[in-house]
């Protein structure tokens, strides 16, 4: 196992979490570490050739009824603007989205110092995004606006 991957995997295990480490690209030394916290699976990408670059991701399933609404990409963009550094991407035909935070920590040890803070940032952003996606308030407000206008005879 590469030094960077080993350091991060041992750190996460030392913090109490089981880790599943998988080499992704032997050429670049890229690996993926999977662990679970607070009911959510997170993925950490490490690179041996550039031991200072890391990425933390987690995926959220979008409920079926909310997939076809067409503006989930815009919602993710809007929520992403509130969370510096966190990027969202829709995947699997819009059935889920992934929240990702890239970190240039410099060394594996520095990355471990900010690790839980980064996980919390990804989780906070992801939670806000899924809550916004499943919140029907916006559409209800729009409907109420339309009904009120219609009742006043503006249409």
């Amino acid at each position, binding site marked *: 196992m590469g030094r960077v991957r080993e350091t991060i995997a041992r750190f996460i*295990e*030392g*913090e*109490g*979490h*089981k880790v599943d480490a998988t080499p992704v690209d032997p050429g670049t030394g890229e690996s993926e570490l999977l*662990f*679970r*916290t*607070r*009911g959510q*699976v997170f993925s950490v990408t490490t690179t041996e050739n550039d031991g200072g670059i890391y990425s933390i991701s987690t995926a959220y399933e979008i409920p079926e009824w909310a997939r076809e609404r067409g503006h989930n990409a815009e919602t993710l963009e809007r929520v992403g603007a509130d969370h510096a550094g966190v990027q969202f991407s829709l995947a699997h035909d819009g059935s889920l989205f992934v929240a990702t935070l890239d970190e240039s920590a410099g060394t594996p040890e520095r990355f471990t110092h900010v690790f*839980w803070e980064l*996980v919390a940032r990804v989780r906070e952003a992801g939670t806000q995004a899924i809550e916004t996606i499943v919140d029907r308030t916006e559409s209800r407000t729009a409907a109420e606006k339309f009904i009120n206008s219609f009742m006043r005879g503006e249409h």
Partner: protein
Amino acid sequence: MSDLLTAVEQALEDEGLLFTRDDDEDAFRIAFKSEGDRYFVVSYRDDPNFVMLGSGWALPSSVEAEDALDVANLLNVRKKFVKTALWEDERDVLFTIELCVESTEELRPHFGRLLDVLRDTAAEFFEQLRE
């Protein structure tokens, strides 16, 4: 006597957490960490319906015991499940969830929630002390 905490071990497995056992003639004990913070689960051989989850923290030396007691009291009123108490000459704070169960299997589907509330209560306790 059967192991009262087997279901808790399974709940920890569900959560992807590592743990250690430290049983003795009086009690079944599990110690584990989550996001680096230490927690424990205890059940007593002579009281198999009782199970306790908890975490203990040292109070920073700058914190006045009276302030900590005030915050603990507020949290005891407001938080579901969790009891917050100062002990060891009021220099430690203990967060515990004490439950009466027929079987610890009953805990398994709720373990994540209980762990969240323990974690959140400790975070709120220290955050309010800083305010």
